[in-house]
């Protein structure tokens, strides 16, 4: 029998992490992710795990770096301004090919921005998370259940590909309550012969991102991107909603997708063949699915709480096959179903 509990998204992702075998959490207070760290501080001692409130976002991600280097499942969480501070650590994690999990409960920006939900960290999550060439796998939960499920998935993918996995949530998903079933079980962590350890009876292990020989560094980058290509080939995920015959394809993730779902149902009742492609992975972006949907679509609409970030990936994916419109609100303002419906009708009239 699986348990069913009413809880906040921030708590669900924390519970999912614990049930994935994560026993090392390092965090720093920032709204709207505070329930996550608070939940960890309550649960970890009961699991003989480590909860540590770090002195900064920078310290927290570097504690994750140290813990991950020993092979344990380690995690941190933050919200938009804190994610920028973690960029250095994310680059080192990638440079050292270490698995780690990071939750971003996005809020409006730039600068201190606001504390209401946002989706303006799409670029920093999927395109430029730090200095140097690297990628993170980016998961986009669509509700509280997926906040739990994605934590389980994140630790699996992180270990499988030795990458950081970011769960790109937002203030709505983090704060809202829904019933959650603790269905998925922990994935077995693979052997980690590269990890730092004690009581050693082997040659020394080194975890480093430094390669002073440019040819060695180049080779390291090429090797890493071969692994990334494998991720792109195998791990792109999406959910289709009334997508099969859709002429107007709405692409939305997270809270925006929840709004768009209502608008699409309403558009259908008005005779417009609308549907949704909801990316579950933002990197790798479900490019093939977009391209395939573009064969029958008249137009795409990107619904997002940013000035137009994911829309660029859609444009690239459909290869000018059809127009791509942007339907957005920003600064912590959430799009309303009427706005999305209006945009769908305009697209249908194109």
């Amino acid at each position, binding site marked *: 029998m699986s348990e069913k509990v009413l809880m906040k998204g921030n708590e669900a992702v924390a519970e999912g992490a614990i049930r994935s075998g994560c026993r*090392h959490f*390092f965090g720093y207070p920032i709204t709207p992710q505070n329930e996550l760290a608070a939940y960890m501080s309550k649960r970890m001692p009961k699991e003989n795990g*480590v909860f*540590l409130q*770090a*002195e*900064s976002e*920078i*310290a*927290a991600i*570097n*504690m*994750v*770096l*140290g*813990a*991950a*280097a*020993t*092979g*344990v499942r*380690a995690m941190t969480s933050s919200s938009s301004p804190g994610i920028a501070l973690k960029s*250095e*650590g994310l680059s*080192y994690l990638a440079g*050292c090919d270490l698995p780690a999990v990071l939750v971003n409960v996005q809020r409006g920006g730039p600068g201190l921005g606001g504390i209401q939900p946002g989706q303006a960290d799409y670029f920093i999550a999927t395109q430029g998370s730090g200095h140097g060439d690297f990628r993170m796998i980016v998961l986009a939960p669509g509700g509280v259940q997926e906040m739990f499920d994605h934590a389980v998935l994140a630790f699996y993918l992180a270990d499988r590909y030795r990458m950081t996995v970011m769960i790109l949530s937002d203030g709505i998903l983090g704060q809202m309550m829904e019933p959650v079933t603790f269905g998925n079980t922990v994935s077995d962590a693979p052997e980690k012969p590269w990890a*730092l*350890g*004690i*009581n*050693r*009876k082997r040659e*020394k*292990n*080194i*975890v*480093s*991102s*430094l390669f002073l020989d440019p040819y060695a560094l180049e080779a390291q980058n090429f090797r890493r991107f071969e692994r990334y290509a494998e991720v792109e080939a195998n791990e792109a995920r999406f959910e289709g909603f009334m997508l099969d015959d859709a002429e107007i394809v709405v692409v939305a993730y997270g809270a925006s997708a929840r709004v768009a779902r209502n608008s699409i149902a309403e558009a259908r009742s008005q005779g417009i063949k609308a549907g949704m492609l909801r990316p579950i992975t933002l990197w790798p972006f479900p490019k093939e699915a977009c391209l395939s949907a573009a064969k029958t679509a008249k137009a795409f609409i990107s619904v997002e709480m940013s000035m137009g970030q994911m829309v660029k990936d859609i444009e690239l994916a459909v290869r000018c096959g059809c127009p791509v419109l942007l339907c957005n609100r920003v600064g912590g303002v959430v799009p309303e179903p009427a706005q999305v419906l209006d945009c769908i009708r305009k697209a249908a009239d194109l």
Partner: protein
Amino acid sequence: MSIVFQKTPVLTDTHFSYCPGCTHGIIHRLVAEVIQEMDIANSTIGVAPVGCAVLAYTFFNLDMIQSPHGRAPAVATGIKRALPDGFVFTYQGDGDLAAIGTAETVHAAARGENITVIFVNNAIYGMTGGQMAPTTLPGQVTQTTPYGRNPSSAGYPVMVSEMLSTLEGTAYCERVSVDCVKNIRKAKESIRKAFETQKAKKGFSLVEILSTCPTNWGLSPTESLDWLRENMMPQYPLGVFKDKGGEV
């Protein structure tokens, strides 16, 4: 034929990348010898900094990680929390520890993080070519203080050992020097005490080691040792600032 002296196996055979006359090599050997003598090499993990010692992971025959600039105490914290039965040390210079990594250093000490920090203070940024460090002396000429460090615009030296000794979480903290045989012996004892403090799970331990930088000071190795004694020691008095295991 009997062997009267041997290089510690805790150091690899890799050639040091340090400049001739630099005292990093001595400090490496002291740390390695202590680890060997305490018989903890198989369970010791080192954290290399950004700075002259960035390649420390190639010199120590231990599991090692190379840390982002200044973050070594945070990285060490992550390792120690995951492997509480292991020995974890960081090896950091003055720019790494007392400028970009000040917060990580202070808070690792404040938490009483059970790690050992080997802090090499040579009053200058070595690897980047001799810029002003937080520990640069008033009046000292560096690449970025060409007229001498002027405290009215460039501030005053950071007294790391004095500062950290005020924190409850700091269990052991001593400033030593490697300018002469007598002091090198004392430095080794201090490093041993720091690791013993960690072994006894007493909290944060730090050994600040006054060190030379002949290349960037523009002096010969022996002149550098004189300069350390004449200029650094008056600014940075040697001694134990905190010892929770002892009487201080």
